[in-house]
């Protein structure tokens, strides 16, 4: 489905928790501590499975939100707070948010004394070191974020890649060992390859969580995570079905300022369609009273969810996902043609197809309006409705034969079909001939990232990994890191512009945060005006929850998903 599978990365950005109605605070807007009690069973009923529970393989927003709050603690984390306050990083396993060297290449943390694994043993520096090393074993531990490979000071091989293949193969182990020091079991020192001013933000990702070496089961760890959080897996966890979490008896509440762990049990179930999930929540029968979901309301349910009957059980949030089109610069080398595509697009109709203002708003920028790097601008002087006539004029001026044929690839489901239909209609008014290619969502990114199979125009969706433009522009627009003979990586437009690449390098080395964000904004405008990227919509997630749920909070830093740290059922 949309948010879990189709997104390229987890989301962690500043947002506003908007009330679904008129801003009054009903049951759903209590802050933590207001009337929650321990006990009971919480149900999480979500359409798309959390593909990987293995912390080093978490890359989807909802799986990250889940793991971080239940099974895999990290040195630092985001607090369960409302709105932008959730992005102010706090210490979790570490005693503070770390000490950095002047050049921001060395980071030191102390580990709290009473953080325990589910068998009672203490969490140590060695555990963190081992966990992070697993990211390098990309053949077995795959699909996770690869920041460790880039940031840690591990020797490089001839191709510029890290010369370490993980703890299973062990070649290059000595090189890796030097990048993380354990001067004491409760002290950890990171040596980075280049300055990273906000490394404490990077450490919030479960990819940097600890893993006990003697409990590691490689590819099977997805269903047998050994926990250092307030809960642990009971019995069998099935990656496509779900499972049950019970309390971790060795979790020490005083060591954890973030997680309240109110429910005694958490039962997770995957597989119902979004429509069925919302039917159940609406009916509020049986276990639905104690249910939350990380599936956003599907279009058919929006009117009911926002209706008077359910408004005190609903909440919505700008979750930071930006829908956009990539125009492949190799297949559409003429800049004017690309600009014509951008001018023809009717963003308002696109938003309508997705469900209207309840689930999104038109945007012109690749950077989410919630980031500091955001600037509002109109690249081509057409409103949000687009201007097919103007686009046609530009196309004719380009001197190409009309109708100009393009293929449009997107991840197929009923809503996406409708959105694609409106885009096709817009473009055909401007003189294009559009073939729609709705692809199977499960294999969507494999296909569109394959240079041989990708089309002229491709749909995608992205949210920043943490609240900075540096997790939007470099991962998506730096051709050097993304493009190889067999794949385009995340750079679906096959964009590899020398000026942009140099500008990215320059921006990354800036130590002044404000200047850095301005640099990202400038690059965003440059790329969009080149017609390479056509931003469409800033996504809003809309959720319903059971009538028994207390302390419901959507955490903007964790992709706008429900924060299990403070939810209670009694």
């Amino acid at each position, binding site marked *: 489905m949309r948010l879990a599978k189709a997104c*390229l990365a987890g989301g962690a950005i500043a947002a506003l928790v908007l009330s679904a109605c008129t801003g009054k605070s009903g049951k759903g807007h209590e802050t933590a501590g207001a009337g929650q009690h321990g006990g009971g069973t919480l149900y999480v009923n979500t359409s798309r499975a959390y593909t990987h529970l293995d912390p080093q*393989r978490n*890359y989807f927003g909802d799986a990250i939100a889940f793991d971080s709050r239940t099974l895999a603690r990290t040195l630092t984390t985001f607090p369960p707070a409302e709105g932008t306050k959730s992005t102010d990083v706090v210490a979790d396993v570490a005693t503070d948010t770390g000490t950095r060297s002047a050049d921001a290449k060395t980071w030191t943390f102390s580990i709290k004394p009473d953080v325990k694994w589910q068998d009672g043993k203490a969490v140590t520096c060695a555990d963190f070191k081992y966990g992070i090393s697993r990211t390098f074993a*990309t*053949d*077995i531990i*795959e*699909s996770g974020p*690869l920041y460790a490979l880039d940031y840690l000071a591990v020797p490089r091989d001839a191709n510029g890649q890290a010369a370490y293949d993980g703890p*299973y193969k062990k070649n290059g182990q000595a090189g890796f060992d030097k990048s993380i020091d354990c001067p004491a079991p409760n002290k950890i020192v990171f040596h980075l390859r280049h300055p990273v001013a906000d490394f404490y933000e990077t450490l919030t990702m479960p990819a940097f969580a600890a893993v006990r070496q003697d409990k590691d*089961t*490689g*590819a*099977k760890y*997805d269903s047998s995570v050994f926990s250092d959080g307030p809960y642990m897996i009971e019995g069998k966890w099935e*990656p*496509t*079905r779900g499972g049950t979490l019970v309390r971790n008896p060795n979790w020490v509440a005083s060591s954890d300022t973030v997680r309240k762990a109110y429910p005694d049990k958490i039962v997770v179930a995957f*597989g*119902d*369609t979004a*429509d*069925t999930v919302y*039917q*159940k929540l*609406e*009916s509020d*029968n*049986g276990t639905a009273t104690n249910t939350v979901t990380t599936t956003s309301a599907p279009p058919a349910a929006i009117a009911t969810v926002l209706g008077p009957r359910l408004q005190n059980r609903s909440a919505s949030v700008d979750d930071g996902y930006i829908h956009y089109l990539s125009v492949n610069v190799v297949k559409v080398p003429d800049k004017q043609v690309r600009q014509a595509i951008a001018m023809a697009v009717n963003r308002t109709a696109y938003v309508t197809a997705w469900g209207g203002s309840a689930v999104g708003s038109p945007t012109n920028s690749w950077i989410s309006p919630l980031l500091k790097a955001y600037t509002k601008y109109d690249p081509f002087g057409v409103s949000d409705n687009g201007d097919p006539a103007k686009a046609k004029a530009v196309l004719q001026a380009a001197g190409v034969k009309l109708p100009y044929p393009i293929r449009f690839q997107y991840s197929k489901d009923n809503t996406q079909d409708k959105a694609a239909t409106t885009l096709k209609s817009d473009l055909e008014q401007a003189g294009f001939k559009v073939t729609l290619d709705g692809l*199977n969502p*499960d*294999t969507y*990114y*494999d296909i569109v*990232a394959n240079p041989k199979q990708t089309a002229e125009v491709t749909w995608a969706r992205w949210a920043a990994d943490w609240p900075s433009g540096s997790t939007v522009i470099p991962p998506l627009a730096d051709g050097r890191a993304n493009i*190889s003979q*067999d*794949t385009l990586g*995340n750079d679906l437009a096959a964009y590899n512009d020398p000026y942009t690449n140099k500008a990215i390098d320059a921006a990354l080395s800036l130590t002044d945060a404000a200047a850095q964000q301005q640099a990202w904004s400038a690059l965003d405008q440059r790329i969009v005006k080149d017609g390479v990227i056509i931003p469409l919509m800033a996504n809003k997630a809309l959720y319903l929850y059971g009538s028994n749920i207390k302390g419901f909070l959507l955490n903007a830093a964790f992709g706008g998903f429900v924060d299990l740290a403070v939810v209670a059922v009694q």
Partner: protein
Amino acid sequence: MLAYVVRRTIAIVIMLFAISVLTYLLFFAIPRDPARLTCGKVCTPELISQNRHALGLDRSIAVQYGDFLKGLVVSRDFPDDAELARTHPELIIHCHAPCLGYSPSQQTTINNVMGRAAPVTVTLTAGAFVLWMVVGVGLGVVSAVRRGSVVDKLLLGVSLIGYSFPTFFVGLILYDIVSVKYGLLPSPGYVSPAHDVGGWVSGMLAPWITLALAYTALYVRLTRAKMLDSMAGEYIRTARAKGVRAHRVVLKHGLRASLPPIITIAGLDIAGVLGATAITESVFNLDGIGKTVISAVQEADLPIILVGVLICATVVVVMNFVVDLLYAAIDPRVRYT
């Protein structure tokens, strides 16, 4: 009789063998590379070929088929890498004979996958079967006995309408509206009877009704047709002429004469219901064999699709065999064909 059974058994074995070869050949024309499934967004060609080698997918079709057959009697390891077995035995997945293969998308042996799925499908099919036979045949008898009456016309009409609704449509209505919204049916889901028999039955009610609906309609009509045929027979007229009471005539003679063909046809229909079973499992989110195959198709998980198709074909062949035996037991003429 014994000679007939032996002959048919040999024919079945040959048929199963032919089916497995045909299935393997058919599916190996798929251009999609299942090894790609084992790596995520950071697929590199080395990774893919590494994984393909580990899964044994870089060998020829004949060798893979041979491995599959061998796996039915000898246990297999995935990945089949002696080096890795020595250094990291916990990363090897061991598949006991009869081993059906390894699923890249579920990352476990197909035995595990099908082992979990089979009870669900069996429960769904068997329960629906009982439901449609009892209700369908029962109502069919009523309809035949009251031929031409309002009841008969009503039953026929409702059956035809019931048969005209696509299974997924009925299922979605029963799930989202009847069960979830109005709470008129218990919440669907599979619970193992070992844990909770009550939950097992109640959780399957909506799926059973969905699957049985179309077939109930058919069996009303079938029973009625067969009953009418047999009730028109000479010996019925004789019985009536002899003064045997009407309902005795119906039940003792009419129904008894109709039942053998009805039951044998039902045996064949069980095999034919597999498609509708898959749809029902999909709608109600029940992890049976059908849903597993459908998910496998979306993930292009070849090994599961293959085994799923083989299982379905085997069921069909076996049911046909059972029906043939029943026929041979009833009708001696058949044994000499």
